[in-house]
Structures are given as C-alpha cells and as structure tokens.
C-alpha cells in the first residue's frame, strides 16, 4: 500500500513564500479572519543568535499527513469526517464534518485561535457565522460608481472567489462551505490524476518533493536514505510524513 509523504529540502528552500500563495490559488482558501489563517501551506520563520552571529531560518509547514493522526482519532462522527486514505493522505470529508473543531484541538500542529505573530495552524475553521470569502461578497465600493466591489467581480466572473481553480473531488469541494474545518489534502485531486501537489509544482527552488515512501525507488525514499531528516514534534507520537532534509544555511 502506498504511503504518500513530502520531503522538503531546506538547502533548496529560500523561504520565498511561493508555495504558500500558490496553495491559496489552487485550493481557493479564504483570507485570514477570526484567528484562522486558512493557509494550508505556511511558514515558521525564526531569527536566532546575536549580531553578527545571527541565523535566520524559514521552515515551510503544512499538514503532516501523520501515520498516527491525532485529528483522525479526535473526529467524533461516524464514519469519520477526518480519515486516512489508503495511500496515507489525511483526508477530510466536507459533508460529514460537523465543525466541532475537535481535530483542530487534537492536532499538535494546529491551534484554535492564532494570536501570536508567527503562529501557524494546519487546520482552519470556516466560521459558521459568515459565508466563506466575505471579501467577494462585500458590495461596498471604494469610490462610488467608479471602482468595483468584491460582490460585483464575483457576479461578473460567475465565481466565488473569482480566481477559484475549479476541480472535483469525492470528499471535498474546491471551495468549502461555512461551518466546517479545512486543511491540506495533499492536492489529492491532482495526485489522483498523476499530477504533483501544486505547492511542489510551484516551488521555484524544487525543494518540495511528494512521493510514496513505501516505494523504495521513489525520489522521496531515495532522499530519505541519502540524508538525515527531521520531522516536526516527533514527541507528539503522531508519526508525521513531512520530512525535512539538509539545513537552511550552508554555514
């Protein structure tokens, strides 16, 4: 059975932000609000040390598609809305999700409310107070009669958000509804058709490699054999499948 994983080559990664933004274009996630980032791909950024011996590192983060996923354990519905697919993706079913946020609470890489600068959360919650993508539902204009409005652009393009990438997947909608959680599904709709995850395709440095670690000849397996690797919060016991190789700085 396949086990999909991502290897991130930190020497190649330059922390540019392309994966984070490209993910938003592919997966049509809404903008930050109410302590939720909706950044399925995000970054941990750190400056350490003292001038001139100062070290900056950028660490791209995303759902770890854990083998022992706490979010799946925590999901209270039956069948589970958060579940593992046969190829190891931690999948989320939009229809079954009841928006209880237990997964968000259980996931060691997620928080309920982003407060501190630089915090990130793998799982975000689409508030049930408001429809998603409110910026493109807003009818107000900056200069009356002269500039557009979000709602007008959505109406003219027939899409909300207007730049939504339209795709289909049995488990999740390309634009999620309010009142449910959402997170990275490793572009399952792309992998299913032999395409790469869009963040990996969009990484200009080629730092993100997606593949099957149960296949010894896959690029991810070879990289993990070649280099030492780290995972985030191994002590949480979730057995994450996003692996970091090499160092951000050559020093």
């Amino acid at each position, binding site marked *: 059975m396949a086990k999909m994983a991502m290897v991130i080559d930190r020497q190649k990664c330059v922390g540019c932000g392309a994966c984070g933004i490209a993910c938003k274009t592919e997966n049509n996630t809404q903008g930050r609000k109410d302590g939720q980032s909706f950044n399925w791909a995000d970054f941990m950024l750190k400056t350490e040390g003292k001038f001139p011996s100062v070290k*900056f590192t950028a660490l791209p983060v995303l759902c770890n598609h854990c083998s022992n996923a706490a979010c799946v354990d925590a999901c209270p519905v039956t069948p589970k809305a958060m579940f593992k697919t046969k190829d190891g993706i931690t999948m989320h079913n939009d229809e079954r999700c009841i928006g209880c946020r237990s997964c968000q609470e259980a996931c060691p890489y997620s928080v309920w409310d982003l407060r501190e*600068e630089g915090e990130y959360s793998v799982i975000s919650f689409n508030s049930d107070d408001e429809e998603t993508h409110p910026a*493109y539902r807003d009818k107000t204009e900056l*200069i009356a009669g002269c500039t557009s409005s979000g709602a007008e652009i959505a109406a003219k393009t027939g899409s909300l958000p207007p*730049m939504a990438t339209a795709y289909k997947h049995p488990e999740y909608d390309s634009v999620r509804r309010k009142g449910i959680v959402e997170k990275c599904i490793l572009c399952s709709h792309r992998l299913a*058709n032999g395409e790469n995850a869009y963040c990996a395709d969009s990484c200009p440095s080629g730092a993100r490699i997606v593949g099957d670690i149960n296949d010894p000849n896959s690029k991810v397996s070879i990289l993990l054999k070649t280099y030492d690797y780290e995972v985030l919060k191994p002590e949480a016991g979730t057995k994450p499948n996003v692996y970091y190789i090499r160092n951000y*700085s050559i020093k």
Partner: protein
Amino acid sequence: MKLRRRDFLKATAAVSAVAMVGCGAPKNNALAPMDPKKAIGEDPGKWISTTCQGCTTWDPIQVFVQDGRAVKVRGNPNSKGNMGTCCPRAHMGLQQLYDPDRVKVPMKRTNPKKGRGIDPKFVPISWDEALNIIADKMMELRNNGEAHKYMLNRGRYTYMRDMIYDAMTKIYGSPNNISHSSICAEAEKSGAFYTHGYWDYRDYDLTRTKYLLIWGLDPLVSNRQVPFVIKTFGDVLDKATVTVVDPKLNASAAKAHNWLPLLPGTDGALAVAIAHVLLTEDLWYKPFVGDFKDSVNHFKAGVTLDESSFEEKYTNGIIKWWNLELKDKTPEWAEKECGISAEVIYKTAREMSVAAPSVCVWMGPGAAMHVRGTYSAMAVEALCGLLGNLDNIGGTMMKGKTLAAKMPKLDDYKDKIAKIKHKYKIDQRGYLEFPALNKGKSGGGVVTNNLADGMLQKDPMEIKMGIGYMNNFAFSGTGAQRWEKAMSELEFYVHITTNASEMTQFADIVLPATIATFEKWGYLKSKANLHSQVSLLQPVVEPIWDVRTDETEIPFLIAEKLAERGFDNLLRYYKEQIKDPETGKGASNAREFAEISVKYYTAPAWDGSGKIGDKINGWEEYKAVGVWNDDRYGYKKSWGKFKTETKKFEFYSETLKKALGKHAKKHNVDVDKVLEVCNYEARGEKAFVPHYEAPFRYGSFEEYPLTFIDHKSRLNKEGRSANTPWYQEFKKVDLGDESWDDVLKINPDDAAKYGIKNGDMVRITSTNGSFTIKAKLWEGLRPGTITKCYGQGHWAYGRVAALDYKNAEPRGFNNNELMPCDYDRLSGSTARNGGFCGVKIEKV
C-alpha cells in the same frame, strides 16, 4: 461562545453519526475509500503564455484559464531564462486582476482643491467624455504655443512604451517625456559602463560559478532574475562559495557561507581594499590583466610605480589606478572605514582569486544607489577586471541579442511645433548639477525624482498638463512630500492606472488601465541563465471592465480625438507606420492597434527572418510559446572589444574622463567644478579611477545617531501588490517583518539604550520627516543601524493597502517620506542606499 458550541456538537456527534449511518453504508473509519463514481480532478482549462511584470525580472509565465477566468499561474516552461519557474509575485497577480478596488470606468475630479486627504470627489464619466476633455486641453496648449508645457510620465512599462512615451510626446511637440528609470536603478550601470563600456544590467553564469559574491542586493528577493536564482541557489551553495556584502542580514546572506555586514555606504572602501590584496599578493588574473614586464610583483603598499613597468592585456590603466587609489588602501585602513575586519578582507580576496576567473561579482543597488554612488559602483565592478571573470566561464556576463523591430522614424510626422528644439527637459537633466551621463552623454539619462522640483521651480519651463501611466511618483520617489506639493499645484493631470493610487489623488481625469500580465498586449526583453529573451504579454482573459491598454490603445484613442480637432499627424503615424507584418494593414481602431503594434515589434522573433535563437514559425506559434530565447551567450567574445574609449577594461576610465570633460565644457567649467557642484570628493585625476568616497549623510551623528537602511521586499510588485490580501498575509517572509503590518527593525542593543521593547510604538525622525511606527527588535542588523522594508505606508491605492483610504491614513509609513531627496548626480539616480539618511528614535 464558540467553546460552548463545540462542546454541544461533540456531545451530539453520536446522534449525527446515527443519522448519517441511516443515509449510507458505514465505512472503515481509518481507511475510508473514495467514492469511485465521483469525478476527480481539475475542470478543463488552458495554460496561456504571458509575462509577469511584478519586478524587473519580467519573468515569462503562463496563466491557467478556466471558463474565461484566470485561476492560477506558473513559470513558462519554454523560457530558458527561468527554467519554468516563477516567484511568489506572479501568483499574487490574480488578486491584482480581481481586486475589488480596481478603477472600472474613467473618472473625473469634481473637487478642484488638491492635496493629501482632500477627497477628489471623483465621478464616473464615459471614455468619450474623458478623451474629449484630454484632447481639448492638449489642443489648447498647442494652439497657445505651449505644447512644451505638456509632459508624459512613464511608470512600469513594456517595450510598447515607444507608442505613448516617444511617438505621442514627440509628434505632439513636447520635450517632456519623463520615465521612472532612475528612481530605483541606473547608478550600477555607471559601474559597468565606465569600466567596461556596458550600460546595462549584467547576467551571471550561476550554474558554473565557483564563487558568488553578492554585493548590495538580495537576488533571492529582488533584482532582475529572481526565479532563476531561487531555482539554482541550493546547488550554487554546494558547488561554490557564496559571500554576501550587505549591511543587514538578507535572505541570501541567511543561506550563504559568508556575510559581510559592512557599514552603510562604505562599499567602495571594501572593494578597493580587496583590489589592494589581489595586487599586493600577486593574485590578479594575468591572462586578462597582464603582468609586470619583469614578471616580478612590484605592488607594495604605499609604493608608487612606473606605468611603463607593466604590460597590460585587456585592461587599461592598472598602474594609474594603483598610484591614484589602491596603493594606500590596505585592509587595515579599510577595516576602520567599513567595519569589516582586515582578516576577513584578506580571506575574501584570497578565496576569490582561487576561484577566478569563475567568479560572479554581482553588484546591486545597495552598492550603487548612493550619493557619490557612481564611484562605489565602479570600485566593485572593477574587481571583474582584476579577476578576469567578465564574460568568462562561471563569471559576470554581459548580454546576447534580442530580436525585435525598431520604432519607425517620427520625422515625417513632426510639424513646426514638434520640430522646435528645447535645450532642457523639465527634470533638468544635463544642468551643471545634473550631469545624468547615460552612456556618457550629458543629460542622456533621466533624473526622475527631480521632476517634482523642476515643476515647482517652473524651470526650465512651466508644466500645465501631464499624462502619467502606471507611475506613482508621489509614493515611489524619496522626499515624497515634494511630489505631493508639485502635483497639488499642477493645473491638469491625467492618470492612467488600475487603482486609485497616491498619484491618482492629484488627477483631474483618471483612465482605467488593463492589468499587465493578464489583460494587456506588450512585449519585454529580459535575460537570465545566459539567454536573452523576447517575452510576450497578451490578454489571457477578457477584461470584465471597460479598461484600455495604456501604451497603445489609449494613445491611439487620444490620436483619434486630436485628429478630430484638426491635428492628425499622430493618428497618421500610428496607422501608416505600424503595419501588421502578416497582412500589411494598419490598425483601423484602438483595439486592433494594441495587437498589431506588438506583432510589428516582435515579428523578427517569429517571422523566420532571424538567424539566431529559437526558431518560431509565425505569430500563432509565438503566442502559444510566449517567449523567444537567444542562443546561450558565448564566453570571452567581448574581450578586446569592450565599448570603452580604449576598447579595454578601464581601471583608468578614459570613458568617464571624456564624458565628464564634455559635460564640463558644455557649462564652461572644469571637471573639478562639476565634481564639486555634484557633491563628489574626488578632484583631478582621481575622478577617472574607481575609488572610495566617504558616505554623504543627512543629519549629524550627534543629532541623528542611527543610520537608516531601506530594503526591498520579496512581495513588492513595483509598488502594486500592497492592496492584495496575500501580500499582507505573507509579509512575514521578508526577514524580520510581520504580516499585516509595517515594522521598524531595531537591534536589541540599540533598543535597550532607548528603553524600547518589542512591539512598542516609536517615533523615528530624519531631516525629512517624522513618523510613529511599531518597533521590532531584530538581530539581523548591526547596532547603530535601523531598517524598514519598503512597500507599506500607502495612504491611498485601496482598502487593503491603506489603513483607512477615506481618511488617507497609511498602514505604517512610506520610507520615501523619511528619506530625503538626493542623487548620485553622475547617473541621475535617486539615492536610497549608502547610509545617507541619519535618524533618531524615541519611545512614544
């Protein structure tokens, strides 16, 4: 409340599950299979080639279009310059295209009073009405003998600029076509031109280099080939030594082997000391420079040498340079000037010499955009001469060819008014104090930032009307307050823009423009990876608003209106001279003109006439592939044929000597007088060699103890991305920055001195302005310096960029209001680096 709801849901989950079981078969929770009957995958769409104009990389990209909507972006796989990559900027374009704050119709100002915070009271008008008003005003000036009081301002452009910037202004009859070029670049071109006769940005053989010296820029962040550098950098780190010279930690320095955080503005000192070591330790590249006739190294600190003792190969004036500048410039001397230890200077020079000639010396604006920056740029670029790396394997490269047509001659369409010769333009280029020696020609370059002062002084003429496109000088020029004053006093301004930017606030008529990349016809020339490129911009989607292309459609529409008023020269030029290369026909309307003019210009790249580079069969194929690539640039072909006065690499610049001499003669003064007026330190022969000049600083160290450093963002798109939520959300990827904010980065030691804690609000004051801003304690810069990223501080543009658009309240502040206006006058460049801005801070 949310907690209560969650607990409620958890408690009732079992009930829900029961209900769900009733709806369908229960599945294995841990391994639920996907429903095989449901479709999976992307809806149909098409990748269409175009070009990102988010920075001056001008990256060939492709846009995925579904059902007439642009939905995602990737690098153009046909580009040999980017190898199919794009940086974060390209993706952000989608939020620019579908920006709720876009201007969707022409607007007319109804409040005659102009100024920041004064509502222009714009009302929507038709294109016809807007164009009639513009044409009436243009004709009024012409009929009054005041055509020269019209100006055209160019901002972000494509090479279709010829139609609006040159043809329209010149046939109409004004000398005042003013570009944006010297606001953020140009000074570095002085470095390359006065040493090796090349007035352009360089290319870099990154895939073969053994030593990458990054000096005064962060190529992973900005400059001219960001995607290619990101693509290759990880491998370069394995194969080469990477050293970054920058006063603050930048993204490249964070990954590099070495970071040399020199004191701002002392680049010249470090460069001449490295040169001193290369010579005294017998480390220069002899196949390029040559050697002493007796093959014994006579370069000894402090010793003056006889010029005849050395036999040069491809260089000119090594001994003169040594005698005039280098002989005393020891690393021990430099250490005191630039703050880099002598030991590190020796090590750097020695390591580079081992890698020579496969060394990339990559000099950027931080080393050049200084008051006196021409000389520091020359000092850094001169290292290419000593190391023999110019156009050599793994080295700093010049560029190959691009296939494109030239602008048809204007002469036959110029009437008596258009033929009047005006000695000077409104930016005062060529004045004694503004040599702006583009390619050595006095007044050949633009002094963009002085346009505001020219307008305010009405010198050399009054300006009564202007048209500006995709420019935002009131935000992008240092001493930005001058621009607000000049624009408030201007009688009539037309702004062609996508958003109600700062400049727009002063406009009388606003014309909504297409968004480059997604809606516009144009083409660009660029280079990376030793390939020159001709890259197409084409409309990938039909605009949802009645917007027009700035450089072609709008001037054509204006030409039609001028013709209606009896002046048809411009319209005839557009129709008669710009012909579709396939049908031989001219345009019959503006929309046709937009495409035909691009076909006309790019034809040599796809009509089969070109003998070099990619073979592209026709216009349809060119539109599909989107980019023409030149063959890989050849090594050493320029050696012995540099476009300098001596055809050699000039350590003693006969080229600069001639240029300065001509400018001095024009004003009946000597060269020393030019240097004095232009605030350079050199006098006599020293003016003709690369040398160190002490940084010029506004504000004494006593009163303004900290030195401000302006730096670039990886997400700025020529000042046009701040209104996108993705820009704000990912602002944190700029080192030390915070999302949705603008922070002043302070070394913790300095912060402690002033009792400032992380997140405190502080007041920062320069000789030019005073602002309140959030403090961010950050170790990425040396005590005594303070830095903020350029890009935030919009008080207009839109509801995301500005904190409060209605009340003109900025998000943070604009660095250009803090930094005073001054220049590297030899190039006309705006100073924005080099430690010229002293500041003081206090906790508020």
